[in-house]
């Protein structure tokens, strides 16, 4: 490795081709930013392949939180003193960081929530209750995470909407035609994942949004697995809502984002009631602030928002396009290696995939695979991945899933393969 060239590679996107080894992604260097990756599990170096569930945190994020709590902490928005003013400024600055990261048009299109799950529930309960009537239709796809199913089912219970499910192909793709075929004059929203958390499929977001817009249908993109694997430009995608959680983007728990187009957010009633979202309160009548503050009741996750800002700065410095390319290489490598294992079947073979490989093995249950891999220092997830309807559609009770991050290296995949050989040895 060319030590002196690395810093240039480490710089922003555009400069990449200036460095000595242009295609080299300095994964060993980035790994040093993540303290947890240095540990051993059962005598093996940790191969953390559960990024789909949550990503690890770089030192820069942990330190940003620590520094904030040690030096700058105060409640925000309501304090006249400097500490509170400084904290407010740092907190509000993250709105700008997020706006730039997803290329939203306005800062007030960025609502801070506690996570993607809350973001979707918020849309269902505010936009949904206000604008939908009994018999109105929502389309979601067969590969959604529970977070993009259950809130709509609850809304169905409450007001009698109809939930339509767009099918997937045997490869695990969502086809625009199949969604189009479900659209009727009563279709009001299409909600779908950017990237499937089980199959890794990248959905044709821009195309789906285009046909939705043509019929005046609102779109909600569950970006939990998109934001961490791909560069995201909400204006290029053309969606009305885009949601994600900080913790899958190398940021803290307890902070999430709801991006909503300005005019749509402005039309939505508040979600939770409390401090900081009101304009004025009397016992008779209460008026609410404008978006985004209207949707941010109570003391927000201040320190966590600062942490998310640091996480976005971290990945932006590396460059999301470069991270995507690196993860693609890992995906290709992993797919090749896994395919060569006898009795192993990869679940989800769409041509456009990102960062995730699910699989089953002939004689071993995914849960047993998980335990054996853990013994080999390899952390994967086994189960239904909060996507039971998809599992049922696939006729599977569970899959094993390896999911990648910017710090995933070929050695992690090699460790996975060694572990899977052990599975075959025991169960073969």
């Amino acid at each position, binding site marked *: 490795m060319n030590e002196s060239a690395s810093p240039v590679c480490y710089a922003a996107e555009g400069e990449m081709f200036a460095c000595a080894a242009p295609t080299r992604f300095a994964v060993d260097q980035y790994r040093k930013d993540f303290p947890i990756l240095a540990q051993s599990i059962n005598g093996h170096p940790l191969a953390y392949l559960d990024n789909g569930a949550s990503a690890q945190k770089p030192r820069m994020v942990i330190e940003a939180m620590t520094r904030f709590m040690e030096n700058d902490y105060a409640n925000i928005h309501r304090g006249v003193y400097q500490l509170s003013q400084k904290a407010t400024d740092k907190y509000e600055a993250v709105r700008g960081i997020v706006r730039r990261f997803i290329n939203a048009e306005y800062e007030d299109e960025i609502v801070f929530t506690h996570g993607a799950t809350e973001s979707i529930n918020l849309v269902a309960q505010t936009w949904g209750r206000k604008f939908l009537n009994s018999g109105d239709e929502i389309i979601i796809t067969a590969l959604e995470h529970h977070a993009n199913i259950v809130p709509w089912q609850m809304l169905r219970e409450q007001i009698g909407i109809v939930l339509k499910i767009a099918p997937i192909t045997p490869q695990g793709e969502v086809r625009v035609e199949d969604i189009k075929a479900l659209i009727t004059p009563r279709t009001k929203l299409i909600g779908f994942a950017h990237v499937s958390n089980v199959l890794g499929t990248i959905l044709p977001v821009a195309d789906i949004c285009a046909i939705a817009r043509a019929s005046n249908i609102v779109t909600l993109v569950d970006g939990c697995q998109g934001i961490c694997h791909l560069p995201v430009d909400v204006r290029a995608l053309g969606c009305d809502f885009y949601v994600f959680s900080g913790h899958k983007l190398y940021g803290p728990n307890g902070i999430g984002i709801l991006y909503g187009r300005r005019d749509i957010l402005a039309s939505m009633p508040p979600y939770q009631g409390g401090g900081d979202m009101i304009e004025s309160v009397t016992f008779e009548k209460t008026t609410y602030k404008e978006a985004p503050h209207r949707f941010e009741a109570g003391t927000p996750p201040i320190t966590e928002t600062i942490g998310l800002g640091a996480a976005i700065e971290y990945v932006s410095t590396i460059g999301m396009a470069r991270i995507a390319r690196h993860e693609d290489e890992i995906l290709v490598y992993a797919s090749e290696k896994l395919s060569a294992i006898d009795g192993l079947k990869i679940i989800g073979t769409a041509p456009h995939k990102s960062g995730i490989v699910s699989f089953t093995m002939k*004689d071993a*249950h*995914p*849960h*047993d695979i998980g335990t054996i891999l853990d013994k080999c220092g390899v952390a994967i997830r086994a*189960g239904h991945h909060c996507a039971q309807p998809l*599992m049922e559609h696939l006729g599977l*009770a569970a899959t094993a899933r390896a999911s990648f991050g910017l710090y995933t290296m070929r050695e992690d995949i090699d460790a996975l393969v060694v572990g899977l050989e052990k599975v075959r040895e*025991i*169960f073969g």
Partner: protein
Amino acid sequence: MTDDLRDLYQDLILDHGKRPRNFRAIDNANHHALGHNPLCGDKIDLFVAVDEAGIIQDVAFQGSGCAISVASASMMTEMLKGKTEAEAAKLFDYLHHSCTGKPADETGLDEDAVDRIKALAGVRDYPIRVKCATLAWHTLQSALKSKAKVSTE
């Protein structure tokens, strides 16, 4: 490491996991329950026939799951035949203690059953797998308590 794993995946377990015994429905079961471990998707459909004297005449199951849960269910069906409900409860206690690393008292228990349970006790080093080993037994408890779901017909 392999030795560790071999403690968990003993031949007896692997054998029952692959070729579960009493893997069928019982037509004249007077107890029945469904067990589910949402974590790994283990599902078990348990049938029990108890005679008037309170002796378990037959136990069988269907379903799917990991090697541990299937093996545990399979071995359970074998060891319960001819036992009373009270004896079954004692075996469950013993299994529960063994699987969670608590002192387990085997006095008065069926020796053969004790050996089988000992083979399962390797899960004690895998806290998250304890649920797999005990699923069938929890389902048994619930089956014996309620006669609701399946009748003798």
